[in-house]
């Protein structure tokens, strides 16, 4: 089969790889869609640790080709893959903190992932969806699961006001999830006009360019601020625009070792709550069901579909400013 193999930092190429065969507890799926994520870029450049050689791609799904003998699903079933494999036995897993499992390994990072025609996937990681689902939407289930985690942590109540900082795929999904959770206002804050317009077309109530003058006075009194951009400026902005008693949920990946200031006096006086949201612990099933339900509008988030052959070139270029999601169809 064809696969996109990362052999070393900055070295990625299409390679002919043996097509995997099912094993006890592991089924082979034919990959139908695999999302390209910022993390893939970080891995490619050596900014995020991974095994090498490895087939990248951790936001994927497909159709079961050869089920394992004990797989509860059948050949031909459409499935989403939860890429994060945890031990289920350690103190963190048992406490429900699976994202901190010391044995956590991820398909497409530590083991072969979804930028290939076929993938060998532990049965525990498979989540069946209806066969009527647009296969391209399989690429959105993992990012949706991460966003659902953020919504869980935000513990938003109906009628609250939400600001979403960052208009990438996470921000666009978080905005839609906030609408489904009955937010009364959803403000998309992002620099790219196309992304602001996209958010409005998908249910955000208003949008603001964060480099506008006096942006802080325009953005006030948010009950929940989702930081989905992962930059210092948005982290600081979040602290200023959350209302008293408000929550800031940090979903964006700010580079490691980047420091920001927070004001402990304001934290007390405003009773702010700053919370991190990491990965998709125990949310993949709900994300699969939600995507399957058709309640999220995902087609407008697909900026491009790519063949495997096109990926190396894309990884070598900076990300397109107004692009949201590239979906690889191997």
């Amino acid at each position, binding site marked *: 089969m064809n696969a996109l193999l990362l052999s070393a930092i900055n070295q990625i190429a299409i390679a002919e790889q043996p097509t995997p065969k099912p094993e006890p507890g592991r089924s082979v799926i034919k990959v139908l869609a695999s999302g390209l994520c910022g993390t893939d870029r970080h891995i490619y450049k050596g900014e995020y640790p991974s095994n090498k050689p490895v087939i990248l791609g951790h936001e994927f799904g497909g159709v079961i080709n050869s089920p394992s003998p004990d797989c509860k699903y059948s050949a031909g079933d459409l499935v989403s893959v939860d890429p994060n494999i945890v031990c289920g036995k350690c103190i963190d897993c048992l406490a429900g903190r699976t994202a901190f499992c010391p044995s956590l390994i991820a398909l497409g990072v530590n083991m072969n992932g979804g930028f290939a025609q076929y993938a060998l996937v532990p049965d525990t990681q498979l989540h069946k969806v209806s066969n009527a689902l647009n296969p391209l939407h399989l690429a959105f289930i993992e990012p949706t699961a991460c966003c659902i985690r953020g919504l869980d942590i935000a513990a938003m109540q109906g009628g609250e006001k939400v600001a979403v900082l960052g208009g990438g795929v996470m921000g666009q999904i978080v905005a839609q999830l906030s609408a489904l959770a009955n937010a009364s206002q959803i403000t998309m804050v992002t620099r790219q006009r196309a992304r602001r317009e996209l958010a409005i077309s998908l249910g955000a109530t208003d949008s603001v360019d964060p480099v506008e003058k006096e942006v802080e006075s325009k953005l006030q009194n948010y009950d929940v601020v989702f930081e989905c951009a992962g930059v210092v400026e948005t982290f600081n902005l979040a602290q200023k625009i959350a209302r008293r008693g408000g929550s800031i949920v*940090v979903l964006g990946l700010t580079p490691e070792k980047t420091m920001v200031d*927070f004001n402990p*006096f304001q934290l007390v*006086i405003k009773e702010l709550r700053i919370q991190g949201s*990491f990965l998709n612990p125990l949310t993949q099933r709900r994300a699969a069901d939600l995507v399957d339900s058709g309640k999220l509008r995902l087609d407008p988030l697909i900026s491009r579909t790519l063949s495997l052959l096109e990926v190396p070139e894309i990884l070598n270029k900076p990300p397109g400013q107004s692009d949201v999601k590239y979906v690889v169809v191997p």
Partner: protein
Amino acid sequence: MKAISITAPSQLELIELADPTPGNSEVVVEVAAVGICGTDLHIFEGEFAPKLPIIPGHEMSGEVVAIGAGVKGIKVGDYVAIDPSLHCGECFYCRRARGNLCENWNALGVTFPGAAAEFLLSPQKNIHKLPKGVDLKSAALIEPLSCAVRGFDQLPRNPGSHYLIYGSGTMGLMMAELARINGAASVSIVDLNLEKLKTATILGFTNTASSADVFDQPRGFDVVIDCTGVTAAIKDGLKHVMPGGTFLQFGVANEGAKVEIEPFWIYNKEITIVGSMAVLHSFDRAVELFSTGVLNAEVMISDQYPLDKYQDALLAFKSGKGRKTIVLPN
């Protein structure tokens, strides 16, 4: 009656004024005890209170000596503790049950006459009757306890959690007691002042040290509470939060204080950083907890002064010696 009036920064006088008489829904309390806290010191130094002169004192207990015509359920002779919070009940936050964040916030002893006086005039709704057998003077501890209860309300409160508390003063020790009755697996207390740590030991907290590094918690603590407001302590405390854990900012820092944090860490370790402001729906529970003996008042209250020595009491508190200082106006 006699009262203490803070007339200008660092100036106070013992004044003589008319005894208060209750309005329709007001109650007059003969003050048994009034506690001194950091807020009183701030007010004495010309901060926090918007206007001077003011009669300070917001941690108070006493006996009802007069009631207004419309007062129901309270009678002359009742022993009471008084919630100093004067939330407007009409603003956005009050109508969202977040009166501690009231836009028109007032409080007895801050913006209205407090209990550093022989008598206190209080709205009926602020009066909490004490059960039989409660020591009236010690009941001045109920107000700070109600702040600690609010702080605890901001935490996950999972039994079996490990707690780390910065500050072995009145508030730190109250937090430690609340942690203990909330089923803490362990309670560790840090203070640079070794004398203060001795009090923790007397109360049965054996994990005490001048640095948190000595405690054997390689994974960190489920909950870290700062009761100091000192940036060095806050910075150190953040380092000891376990993945998935919570940091509570309880101590009031200087207004412009800044602490560096790493957004990647908040994200990657799903840290919660949360503030707690004053009293919110926690006074009645503090009365209950105090009545069941959650605090050892004999240990918690180290010094008592008559009203005419109010300034001495303030300065003794400022020196950092002892624990809770109370003033007995009658």
